[in-house]
């Protein structure tokens, strides 16, 4: 088990699919998935390459635990240079696709070049070939998924696919798999579209080989599952409320930004919370939430399966569109925040509808919601006019406007094309670059760096731009996992951020879900890797691999042209104090944390790993 030791190289320009042995030296140094694919990208591409040029590569990679009975062992990632940021992009997805890659016998697929015409990759175990996809181009991700299942007459086919937004050049397109799971951030779907690759359809029946020491493996796996089941977050909170368990919690501690982060604290938070998703609605007495759902191998099952109220304005006139009438992937916390609190909209059904469309046409709800929020602020300031928006009254809190702008994005026409550029380009276009709530061009997730200091340092230094899942210090600063740190303190935060970033890089390279780390420490994870993989995988080695990956990504970004000047936060978060609530008066004190962070990272003052660091980590 662990690695299949086989990768597939797909040259889209030439139309060839070629198997290659996995570089096991690199696997030993970078484990799999995020780390290992980054190593391939670094070795094979020029960091200065244009993200949407044929010279950029896109890698889909599993980890050594993908396809095993380790809880949550079904993950895969998409690694490339991102078009929204120009930085390393690495987006992680659950669902069932990762296992299918592994069962078909592949650790990783490297896509290079650009096909002259739209194609999709079909994989059935050893068979891998590019097939024409003209009939899929121009279809939504869901339509293309349906067509592929029908064409192949195989209900067990697993599909990764891009939607129309990626085809239309929206810079935050996702790769959707299993209809409502996504390699969501940084525009990895847009890169896929630039290669004229519409989909990857996989069927794997070879099996993932048994571990070499099966008693040790099953003991470690059983211990891991028990820890998840007994932990209040992974055993109760996440299955019951999903990540939406956080909406009221984060709002309560003064950490929930609202209205393009102009405010902290959202008066409508309860209406769009995980608890609200359980409340029966007036029209049919049914709640928004139908059930929780698991990704492959996951014993947590945090996924939300929801329906939209059939009487709601967003779908009232769409009886001819069955995809909105039944159940599908519902709101996660980040999406509920970006589409809701950040736009000032507290209409749960409107947000659920927009979330469906994000999945249906493959775009990142975080970047989308935040870009709409920035546009709303510019609209209220008079810098964006009704003429610009095509008549959409883009005021904060206007649910109809949110729905209209969502549908405009899907068509890629008019103001939809402007939104598709992301907040950084949009704010530059309309003359107020400081209103883009982003780092390195990637929009913020749902935690305010003024009310929660450490997450601000993580956002500023995250290798893919403002991202919570590079170093989720919220676990410590709010939830007390593994130890509580004071949210408004900066002391100790550089060390905290580094520890979370390094551990996360390892988790993202193993084939398991980051959410396990609400309950699992490295002392729970390392034994499972150790029992599954050849070689000795101690806690120390795992952490060193994590740190090595972090530095490799950093060096890629530096070579791509990023500098210490890009490790910053928007002015608003450094200057405009929180106006009310439990964190009133706070700004982010990045300057108190960043030098220390560079120092403990072993970086120079200009943010480059020192020769000693490079040598220590074997880079």
């Amino acid at each position: 088990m662990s690695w299949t030791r086989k990768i597939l190289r797909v040259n889209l320009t030439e139309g060839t699919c070629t198997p290659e042995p996995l570089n096991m030296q690199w696997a030993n140094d970078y484990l799999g998935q995020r780390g290992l694919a980054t190593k391939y990208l670094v070795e094979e591409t020029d960091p200065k390459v244009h993200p949407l040029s044929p010279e950029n590569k896109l890698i889909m990679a599993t980890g050594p635990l993908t396809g095993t009975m380790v809880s949550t062992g079904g993950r895969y990632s998409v690694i490339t240079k991102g078009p929204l940021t120009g930085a390393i992009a690495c987006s992680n997805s659950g669902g069932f696709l990762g296992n299918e890659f592994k069962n078909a016998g592949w650790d990783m697929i490297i896509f290079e070049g650009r096909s002259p015409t739209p194609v999709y990759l079909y994989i059935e175990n050893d068979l891998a070939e590019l097939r024409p996809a003209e009939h899929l181009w121009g279809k939504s991700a869901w339509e293309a998924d349906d067509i592929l299942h029908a064409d192949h007459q195989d209900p067990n086919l697993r599909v990764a696919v891009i939607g129309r937004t990626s085809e239309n050049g929206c810079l935050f397109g996702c790769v959707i798999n299993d209809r409502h799971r996504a390699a969501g951030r940084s525009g990895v779907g847009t890169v896929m579209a630039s290669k004229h690759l519409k989909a990857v359809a996989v069927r794997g029946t070879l099996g993932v080989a048994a571990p070499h020491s099966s008693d040790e493996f099953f003991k470690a796996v059983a211990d891991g599952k028990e820890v998840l089941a007994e932990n209040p977050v992974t055993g109760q909170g996440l299955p019951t409320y999903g990540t939406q368990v956080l909406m009221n919690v984060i709002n309560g501690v003064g950490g929930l930004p609202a209205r393009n982060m102009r405010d902290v604290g959202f008066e409508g938070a309860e209406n769009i919370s995980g608890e609200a998703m359980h409340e029966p609605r007036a029209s049919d007495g049914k709640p928004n939430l139908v059930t929780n759902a698991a990704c492959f191998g996951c014993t947590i099952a945090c996924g939300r399966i929801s329906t939209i109220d059939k009487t709601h304005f967003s779908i009232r006139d769409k009886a001819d569109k069955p995809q909105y009438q039944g159940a599908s992937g519902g709101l996660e916390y980040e999406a509920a925040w970006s589409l809701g609190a950040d736009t000032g909209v507290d209409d749960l059904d409107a947000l659920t509808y927009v979330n469906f469309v994000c999945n249906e046409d493959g775009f990142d709800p975080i970047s989308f919601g935040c870009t709409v929020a920035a546009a709303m602020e510019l609209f209220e300031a008079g810098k964006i006019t009704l003429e610009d928006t095509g008549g959409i009254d883009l005021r904060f809190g206007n649910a109809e406007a949110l729905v209209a702008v969502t549908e405009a994005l899907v068509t890629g026409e008019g103001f939809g094309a402007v939104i598709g550029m992301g907040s950084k380009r949009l704010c530059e276009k309309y003359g107020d670059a400081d209103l883009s709530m982003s780092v390195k061009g990637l929009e913020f997730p749902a935690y305010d760096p003024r009310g929660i200091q450490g997450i601000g340092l993580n956002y500023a230094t995250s290798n893919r731009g403002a991202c919570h899942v590079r170093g989720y210090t919220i676990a410590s600063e709010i939830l007390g996992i593994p130890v509580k740190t004071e949210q408004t303190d900066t002391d100790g935060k550089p060390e905290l951020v580094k520890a979370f970033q390094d551990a996360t890089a390892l988790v993202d390279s193993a084939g398991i879900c980051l959410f396990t780390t609400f309950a699992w420490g490295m002392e729970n994870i390392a034994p499972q890797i150790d029992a599954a993989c050849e070689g000795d995988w101690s806690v120390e080695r795992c952490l060193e691999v994590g740190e090595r990956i972090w530095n490799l990504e950093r060096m890629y970004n530096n070579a791509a042209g990023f500098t210490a000047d890009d490790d910053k936060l928007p002015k608003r978060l450094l200057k405009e104090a929180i106006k009310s609530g439990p964190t009133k008066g706070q700004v982010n004190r990045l300057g108190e944390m960043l030098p220390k962070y560079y120092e403990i990272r072993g970086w120079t003052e200009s943010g480059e790993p020192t020769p000693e660091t490079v040598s220590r980590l074997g880079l």
Partner: protein
Amino acid sequence: MQRSLYLDPAKCTGCLQCEMACSYEKLGEFNPSRSLIKVFTFHEEGRFAPYTCTQCDDAWCLRACPVDAITINLSTAAKVVNEAKCVGCKVCTIACPFGTVNYVHETGKVGKCDLCDGDPACARACPTEAITFIDANATGYERMRAFAEKSISAANATAS
């Protein structure tokens, strides 16, 4: 005590741990495509349903087999395929009304659930008790218990 697999779709999250466990038990590898228990997803209803052989007392598959390759395990009452005898004729797959015995092209034989000799791996692996292995005479007791509980609250309401 004879035991039956009891499958409760309402508790299933669709994680497929059961399919991995089944394939590991039978093949020593993680291969959901070869699992003898299958979880079906009903996307638009937001439901998941595990399904496998019901171990019919008067088993169509067993009666249909022309070479007597399907026999009864006397300790578990499972209907078991004897691979050495099976000729892969697939008549049992036609006879089974539930579709739970299927041809396996990798082996040229048919495959069906055999209750793992009385300790089903799927039930052990299920994290939510959607699959349990319980007294064959008591598979309705959970539902009876739920109704019994209602009768208590009704009685309490009457008393007060």
